[in-house]
């Protein structure tokens, strides 16, 4: 095992898959030799694999994804980068109407092995057009997979699965997680889709969290343990496919559920997870499900405003205490 950042883990996955399969190529805005991507994930790859396989594009999000679709259905394995997740809105037709539906509407004739990497998340004061968490849009689109890694291990392993698979994947990277470090194995490995990971075991409450919220939830669990509350922290790792079993099993054990998600509450990730538990394990719950999510506002700019809307350790601790009473 060795320690790497999420950024390095992602780059390793891309590099190793490009070495393994010559049909894998990258395209996106400023991902090539001058920038290596706005967050530096693809740094060095153009030098190693050439400009043909690490293609800088014009600022044309719709064409980036459309080109990825066209290449994917004709034998290639493109991994496209959308510089900020918010800009996926510009490519929404190609992602949701084309990539996600081509296999289905053509009766299974085609596969669309297209990975769309994009950073979501707030916390660096870049306001409403560069900070959103839009996972729910893509969870609501059958035909797409949605990966949401929180650690270097999951980032590398899930990205490998995404590139090797035969389906379009919206691969979410949280921009605050790029420098976060963690251990990964020396040897080749991958992480399957649809398998949640219990990041911390506990018995009093289940906290389901994704992306950067996993780290906030772990910090909250640590705080709660000092107060005698044992929290289990579960990271679904992919929202589609979604591992209901692990979460339902945990809820059956703890009888309490807090769902933490950085997206806004209405129609959000937390709503879907709460609904799944309501359908499948309501009888096991001893308290109402608590959701910790962003309020239904755009992401504001000023640090005081932005900090207010992002769920934090304190808000998670508070939510847990509202449904867990320990003396």
């Amino acid at each position, binding site marked *: 095992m060795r320690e790497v950042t999420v950024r390095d883990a992602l780059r390793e996955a891309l590099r190793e898959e490009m070495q393994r399969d010559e049909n894998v190529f990258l395209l996106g805005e400023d991902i090539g030799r001058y920038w290596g991507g706005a967050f530096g994930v693809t740094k060095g790859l153009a030098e190693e694999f050439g400009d043909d396989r690490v293609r800088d594009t014009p600022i044309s999000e719709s064409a980036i994804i*459309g080109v990825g679709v066209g290449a994917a259905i004709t034998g290639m394995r493109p991994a496209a980068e959308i510089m900020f997740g918010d800009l996926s809105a510009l490519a929404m037709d190609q992602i949701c109407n084309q990539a996600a539906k081509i296999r289905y509407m053509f009766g299974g004739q085609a596969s669309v092995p297209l990975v769309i990497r994009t950073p979501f998340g707030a916390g660096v004061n870049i306001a409403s057009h560069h900070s959103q968490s839009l996972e729910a849009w893509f969870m609501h689109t059958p035909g797409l997979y949605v990966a949401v890694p929180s650690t270097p291990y999951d980032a590398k392993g899930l990205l490998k699965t995404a590139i090797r698979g035969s389906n379009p994947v919206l691969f979410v990277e949280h921009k605050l997680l790029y420098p976060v470090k963690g251990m990964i194995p020396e040897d080749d490995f991958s992480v399957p889709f649809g398998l949640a990971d219990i990041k911390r075991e506990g018995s009093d409450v289940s906290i389901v969290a994704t992306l950067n919220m996993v780290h906030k939830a772990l910090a909250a669990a640590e705080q709660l343990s000092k107060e005698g509350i044992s929290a289990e922290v579960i990271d679904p790792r992919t929202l589609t496919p979604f591992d209901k079993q692990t979460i339902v099993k945990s809820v059956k054990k703890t009888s309490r559920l807090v769902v933490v998600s950085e997206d806004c509450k209405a129609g959000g990730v937390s709503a879907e997870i709460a609904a799944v538990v309501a359908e499948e394990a309501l009888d096991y719950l001893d308290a109402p499900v608590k959701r910790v999510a962003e309020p239904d506002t755009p992401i504001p700019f000023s640090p005081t405003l932005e900090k207010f809307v992002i769920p934090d350790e304190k808000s998670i601790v508070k939510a847990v205490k509202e449904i867990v009473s320990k003396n």
Partner: protein
Amino acid sequence: MIENLKLIEMYRQMLTIRFFEEKVFELYGQNLVPGTIHLYAGEEAVAVGVCANLRKDDYITSTHRGHGHCIAKGARLDKTMAEILGRKTGYCKGKGGSMHIADFSIGMLGATAVVGAGIPIATGAGLSIKLRGTDHVVACFFGEGASNQGTFHEGINLAAVWGLPVVFVCENNLYAMGTRQSRVMLIQNIADRAVAYGIPGVVVDGNDVLTVYEAAHVAVERARRGEGPTLIECKTYRQKGHSRFDPAAYRVKEEVETWLKKDPITLFQKKLFEMGVLTETEAQEMVQEVKKDVDGATKFALESPFPEPEDALEDVYASKEGTATK
């Protein structure tokens, strides 16, 4: 010079498209076609003139008005008709319908019902060809209405700057649904927009199949040589309304009559007679053969079962590979 056999085959394809579309229209009137239809009648010279330059393993992308593209690229009539009728034996097992027919085995990469969405996808297929180092070509069909979409700009610009083997074929039938071109564009020729991307733009009479063929020939060969894309604008006219029973009241009678006089099949037939490639008797025989083919396809489709309701749950994902089994 095109060989006589090829000319006759092109004529047969145009006839096939026409009679196929007339049959679809007839079946629609009998409530046998679910949903809607967008007929290609009147535009046959475009699909046939372009596809006559393509190999079986070349690619095309198509539109909501796509039956003609399918037939010209070599799709089977029976599976096409079955798909339009929503049957299990259709190309897409009844999941796509008239607006989403695809046959990947002949490089027909599918019809999209989002206007203009096929343009960047065609560019992507072109990039795939370039990266894999083959000499295939993509023909991308779309209407003049699609040229006002952002995807037209983004997709053609990228194909141009990367020198991709794509032939962009604009079927200018003058109307985007009911909106006449002059109401939404100050230019007369969509091909003028090619200048903005630094690629050749050509305007041709889209009802003259030989003119379309010649323009497409130059563009396809150029693409095959790796010299990049071309934008071909084919001036044509849809003889029916936009969809279903659209009476097309937005078109004046004189305009319709003028275009009906320029019917692409009548024009081509006349030329073939003049050239001595086809006789009247042969033409009449061919009509009977083509009608028989269309009737056979229709019989196949009508006798085919509808999909099982639960089939709706299949084909969402390619496989469960890489996913934890639950």
